[in-house]
């Protein structure tokens, strides 16, 4: 029996970096149909249909985004699955994990199916979903975790940014998730200590008179969660940690062998509360931008590998959401468009080498999500990102592919440009020249 002819793509002249297979060398990549079919040398009977010239470029496994909000369903005035998956592939991201705080919340298979269906229809990036940890994210009753998992609708669970105020419910939810074999994704913030705060508690919040979120809002939450993780044995991931102190606590837990991982977002290793300046609402994020000491601590934790992954924590907003006095604006940064260039700065700053950076953008987040992505082994899905790390770019929010133009990085001079993105062997993005 013969299968229908599959297209054959050969990526030439590129420098391949594939952390899983320990490749960091000039090698061609061969793709047959949806899969990687050869590295370095063509498989038998390979007849090249398409050549992609990756001269001066890095050829990398497609990036895996741990936390991307696509705003659909529920907030289509901010963005849609089509708009954001399109922006993702332009940023080199081939798989996006969506947290459950859509409207309606992802706590039934129907919502997860809707998102998967729309993502497939859009035809850009892979989209996977986390299920709600508690019913409607209200922190009161467990959601149907097992049902969600069995039908393949969620690959992990989270209460997103909603607090589970009752610590007993959190304990039960972790126990239940552990028995389902699900990883719990945690936004670690003590709701009472954070209150209505919108900025890091320190000299800047004091000067500007902004309601403050103390460091302890994060450290106390991380500390309680670590106790419960140890007790329940659940596998857990901490989203975008903002303080050096919390990272130290997580590092200790990791060294004790607890199954915990952590990511950070570029704004936490590039910006501090000082960047709020005179109330720049694009710097309103949750958790808040912290102090210089925290920024240094995050960079150190990237270097010593406490931080497993980098996530853009993509939160696109409509213009009106940021058009108000600071405290009345919605928190979040549109991150897909700037993820690569801002992360490449870590290589420039000698925090990470290229291999480690690509690991934190692809293989490591895929491992955290428990999906077979983030590598270019023969037989793997051909999700490939090709970028030139040296192309100088000035960040211009008006040219963002994302529908959300909310970014404090507007005007930054950076290097790094995605040239081609392939998802399952299909060219879904090519930079205009």
């Amino acid at each position, binding site marked *: 029996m013969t299968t229908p002819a599959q297209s054959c793509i050969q990526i030439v002249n590129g420098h391949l970096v594939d952390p899983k297979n320990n490749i960091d060398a000039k090698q061609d990549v061969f793709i047959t149909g949806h899969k990687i079919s050869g590295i370095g040398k063509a498989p038998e009977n390979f007849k090249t249909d398409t050549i992609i010239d990756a001269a001066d470029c890095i050829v990398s496994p497609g990036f895996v985004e741990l936390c991307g909000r696509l705003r659909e369903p529920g907030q289509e005035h901010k963005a849609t699955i089509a708009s954001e998956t399109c922006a993702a592939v332009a940023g080199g991201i081939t798989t996006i994990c969506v947290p459950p705080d859509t409207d309606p919340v992802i706590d039934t298979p129907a919502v997860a199916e809707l998102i998967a269906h729309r993502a497939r229809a859009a035809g850009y990036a892979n989209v996977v979903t986390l299920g709600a940890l508690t019913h409607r994210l209200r922190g009161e009753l467990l959601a149907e975790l097992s049902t969600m998992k069995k039908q393949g609708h969620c690959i992990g669970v989270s209460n997103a940014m909603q607090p589970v105020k009752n610590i007993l419910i959190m304990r039960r939810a972790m126990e239940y998730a552990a028995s389902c074999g699900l990883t719990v994704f945690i936004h670690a913030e003590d709701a009472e200590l954070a209150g209505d705060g919108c900025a890091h508690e320190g000299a800047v919040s*004091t000067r500007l008179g*902004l309601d403050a979120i103390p460091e302890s809002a994060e450290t106390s939450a991380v500390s309680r969660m670590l106790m419960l993780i140890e007790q329940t044995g659940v596998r857990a991931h901490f989203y975008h940690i903002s303080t050096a102190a919390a990272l130290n606590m997580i590092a200790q837990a990791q060294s004790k062998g607890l199954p915990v991982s952590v990511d950070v977002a570029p704004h936490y290793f590039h910006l501090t509360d000082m960047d709020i300046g005179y109330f720049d609402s694009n710097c309103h994020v949750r958790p808040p931008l912290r102090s210089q000491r925290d920024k240094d601590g995050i960079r150190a934790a990237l270097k010593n590998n406490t931080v497993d992954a980098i996530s853009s924590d993509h939160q696109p907003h409509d213009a009106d959401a940021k058009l108000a006095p600071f405290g*009345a604006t919605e928190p979040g940064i549109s991150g897909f468009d700037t993820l690569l260039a801002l992360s490449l700065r870590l290589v420039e700053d000698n925090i990470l080498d290229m291999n480690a950076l690509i690991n934190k953008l692809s293989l490591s987040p895929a491992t955290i999500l428990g999906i077979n992505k983030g590598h270019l082994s023969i037989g793997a899905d051909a999700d490939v990102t090709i970028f030139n790390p040296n192309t100088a770019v000035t960040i211009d929010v008006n040219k963002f592919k994302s529908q959300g133009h909310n970014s404090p990085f507007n005007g930054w001079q950076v290097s790094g440009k995605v040239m081609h993105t392939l998802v399952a062997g299909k060219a879904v993005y090519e930079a205009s020249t």
Partner: protein
Amino acid sequence: MKQHDIQFDDNGQLRHFLTIEGLKRDTLTEILDTAENFVTIGDQQVKKVPLLRGKTIINLFFESSTRTRTTFELAAKRLSADVMSINIDTSSASKGEDLLDMLHNLEAMHCDMFVVRHMQSGAAHFIAQHVSPHISVINAGDGQHAHPTQGMLDMFTIRKHKKDFTGLKAAIVGDIMHSRVARSEIHAMNIMGIPEIRVIGPHTLIPPGAESLGVHVYHDMEEGLKDVDVVVMLRLQRERMTGALLPSESEYFHTYGLTQEKLALAKPDAIVMHPGPINRGVEIESAVADGPQSVILDQVSNGIAVRMAIMSRVLGRQPQGALANSSEGET
């Protein structure tokens, strides 16, 4: 990055008055000097000068305040401007888009200045960023951030009674955490060269990193008041008197209320100020509030002259420059 101080126009002249932070001592001194000239207007038969004739000023108060609004209105009227006040029900105008819509509507009516009070820190900056280039904005209090005209009138009052700032010790007592007045005063005192500024209050009412504003922090009032020349008492909002910040009104008065005994620790000629309205028996006892060292009512009357000085400076900046010059000749 791109951020510049939006208070200044392209020629470096003061276009808005949003915060005292970042202003020069010369600028503040000029405002105080101008205010000096305006003080006597209140005593004249015709309490008016024609400096802002033909200008339209709109007071936009998203937070109610009779006193501040009235002094701004009087200041505008004495400068011969047309003035109207709008109190905005915050429940209907809480969203930014509505706020901007409203501003643009008012702009379309050709006004020249907004005087804004709002409960969100940064609201005055936000509005200043979005108004048309010919419009000036004066901050009449934004959240917990700044109340710069109050800060200036307090400097005016201090200068009147103490002449020179550079040998003074000043203490600001009470709820520093939630006080925009305290923040503006601290900036003004530092800029004017007061060498020792103390803030006094319980830990729960002193914001973290207060020292970075350039003050010394005291939790013991007796210690903090020792030998000061100026005592500024802050109003304690009723909703903060009980709960997690303070156990009770009476305990607060006992520890941080200004009594004659405590005032005796300050210099004999120390002045007592309060931005008003006063909670008698909570932050200050009546004997002190009405006593010989109190300059609280003086502050209120100075408020009009200082606000006139700020309004005429900001609106008098316009290209022709005629207004600015005439202010010297007028008085």
